[in-house]
């Protein structure tokens, strides 16, 4: 084990850790606002990566149909709600917009020559396709039961995850996908080569974290979300719609997942069911942060990335065992450090 190997493993750990950190943040964001543990978070990553890969290899992109179908269901649900209230409730905002975006994205994936429109356009189209999935999932599966016990929300969340993985196999097939790197450049720093894709991942992660910080600290919508996270009932009393907060947090989570997917797709082969294990590691990071502290969660996720890289080097057969065993001392420490009784609800 020399300096060069340490540098390369460290680089690998930082790249993966950065992605885990992003996922940890979005899992925490959704949990604090809606009390939903977003198990399908990983599917946003996998679907984005596979959609991008399908575009580049010239295969038909099927995801648009799923998003469009969900948008239609969401619109019908809204219509049923308005009809049942006999016009007393106003037509809810947002769903029709999502339907329009989903329809547009679906049409674009069918008419454009997807493998020749350039990487930037492909990334934009991927975002337009996958991000609406976030608010649509919330509208169709969670909005009606938003006030239910968090155990119910968790079970529905797992069900949505299982259904999405199955649909993913149908849409993308069992084989993995991989995309072209943004650039092939390498930089030599000391004894190690740094791949430019690594720098992209780190830069994008930092930019996103900065963006989220500004969003939550400085903007009205961000503060509204934060208020909902701090106290749901209080936020509702001062006029913050819980539906809106739920949708906004799901949209953000989907956006972060999609960006992570686009970032890591050139580094690794992603399968239709890869998302779960990636988001599970993000979840471990979020647990280290106690599902409340964003900076601690980000550090925890980076730590997971490093632990993974080095434990793989020493004992590749036991990698997952080592990474998930590390969770135990953290849980013990947290339960000792926090004697306060967590009040459910």
């Amino acid at each position, binding site marked *: 084990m020399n300096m060069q*190997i340490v540098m390369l493993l460290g680089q690998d750990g930082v790249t993966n850790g950065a992605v885990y950190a992003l996922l940890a943040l979005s899992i925490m964001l959704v949990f604090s606002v809606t009390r939903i543990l977003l198990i399908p978070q990983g599917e946003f990553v996998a679907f984005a990566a596979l959609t991008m890969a399908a575009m580049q290899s010239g295969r038909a992109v099927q995801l648009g149909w799923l998003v469009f179908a969900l948008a239609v269901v969401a619109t019908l649900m809204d219509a049923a709600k308005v009809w049942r209230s006999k016009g007393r409730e106003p037509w809810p905002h947002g769903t029709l917009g999502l339907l329009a975006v989903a329809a547009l994205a679906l049409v674009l994936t069918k008419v454009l020559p997807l493998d020749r429109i350039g990487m930037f356009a492909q990334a934009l189209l991927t975002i337009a396709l996958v991000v609406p999935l976030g608010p649509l999932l919330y509208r169709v599966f969670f909005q009606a039961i938003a006030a239910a016990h968090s155990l119910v929300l968790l079970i529905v969340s797992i069900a949505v995850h299982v259904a999405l993985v199955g*649909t993913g196999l149908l849409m993308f097939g069992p084989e993995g996908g991989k995309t072209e790197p943004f650039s092939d450049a390498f930089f030599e720093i000391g004894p190690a080569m740094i791949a430019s894709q690594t720098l992209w991942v780190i830069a994008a992660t930092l930019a996103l974290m900065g963006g989220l910080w500004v969003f939550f600290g400085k903007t009205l919508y961000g503060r509204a979300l934060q208020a909902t996270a701090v106290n749901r009932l209080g936020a509702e009393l001062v006029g913050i719609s819980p539906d809106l907060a739920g949708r906004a947090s799901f949209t953000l989570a989907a956006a972060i997942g999609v960006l992570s997917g686009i970032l890591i797709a050139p580094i690794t082969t992603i*399968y239709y069911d890869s998302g779960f294990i990636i988001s599970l590691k993000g979840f471990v990071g979020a647990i280290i942060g106690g599902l409340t502290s964003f900076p601690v969660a980000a550090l925890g996720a980076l730590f997971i990335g490093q632990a993974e890289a080095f434990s793989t080097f020493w004992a590749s057969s036991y990698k997952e065992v080592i990474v998930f065993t590390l969770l135990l001392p953290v849980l013990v420490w947290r339960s000792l450090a926090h004697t306060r009784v967590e009040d459910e609800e």
Partner: protein
Amino acid sequence: MIAKPLALSLLLGALAVVPAAAQVKIGVVTSSSGPIALVGIPQKNSVALLPKSAGGQSIEYIALDDASDPTATVTAFKKLISEEKVDAIIGPSGTPNAMGVINFAAESGTPMLAPVGSAAIILPMTEPKKWVFKTTQNDGLVADKLIEHMVKTGIKTVGFIGTADPYGDNWLKVFTEGATAKGIKVVTAERFQRQDTSLTAQGLKVTASRPDAVLIAAPGSSSVLPETTLFDQGYRGKIYQTHGAALPDFLKLGGKKVEGTILAASLMLVLDDIPDTNVSKKLAVDYVAAYEKAYGTKPATFGANVYDAGLMLQSVIPVALKTAKPGTPEFRAALRTALEGVKELAGTQGVYNLSPEDHSGFDQRGLELITVSGGQWKLLK
């Protein structure tokens, strides 16, 4: 509300039921969803291409999906045996799935033709395993072919990267045994999971031990990432792959980085380079053409293994019909005896010569050394 995506995913497991007028019933169990779906989907697709009649009797196929779950395989087998009263079963797709159902096949006296990789399902031969036949090349046979090439090109040390599943386990075992016997040393053995996002550490460990060549044992497209990682890390030694990499996606995902890879697999990958005198060529060409016509893609060899099982049954059904009627235990027993007597039967994957001791019956004729050149599979000359 979750019904819609669920219904969509259930569609995948839908049964392919063929008209009920048939007289010989064959059950097919594949893993066309779940973790090893990449193996099971071409197998499920091949069911529609299987022979429709044999010895004047039509054949009905009843296909079930076990979702890669060994428990579901048992359920599917029990259903096929006790409810459908099938005469033989083709499947399942995975080695763990197959290991779990051997006793059920034997108890009911139903011959089972498993297209799985590991020789453990037929060796060592025991009383229950008499009912099990295997339509793939044994890993050991493929390993010998690769080791032979390594010896010829003067390779002394080999690094191993394999998946942490029965496929990788068995390959490490048979390869280490075979290589040690020929004086080749396996200097490092690294493992990974199919869904791993980074293999940097495994690659570094292998590169650091400076082997003359690296063998990657992984099924399907998971065989690509170890190789591209090694390439990116500057490793330029020979890289060997197993027949698990023998599918179109390997070339697509690997691109320039997998040039020069050497693997041993069935002739299906290099049909154009194979002389017409090879008895398997016409069968393989017809199968690939029929599959492409039906599904628009080239089949992976996993599908051809199921197809060969169908050909094998087609050849023994007329023999068994002489002694008993389909649907009876005597017919199933006759099928089993006839399968053991299969001689020089050409399949898409090679030539089968079965015996009471050897229930796989492949020899080196079913294997070709193949390399990647100019983004295409080419016969290694």
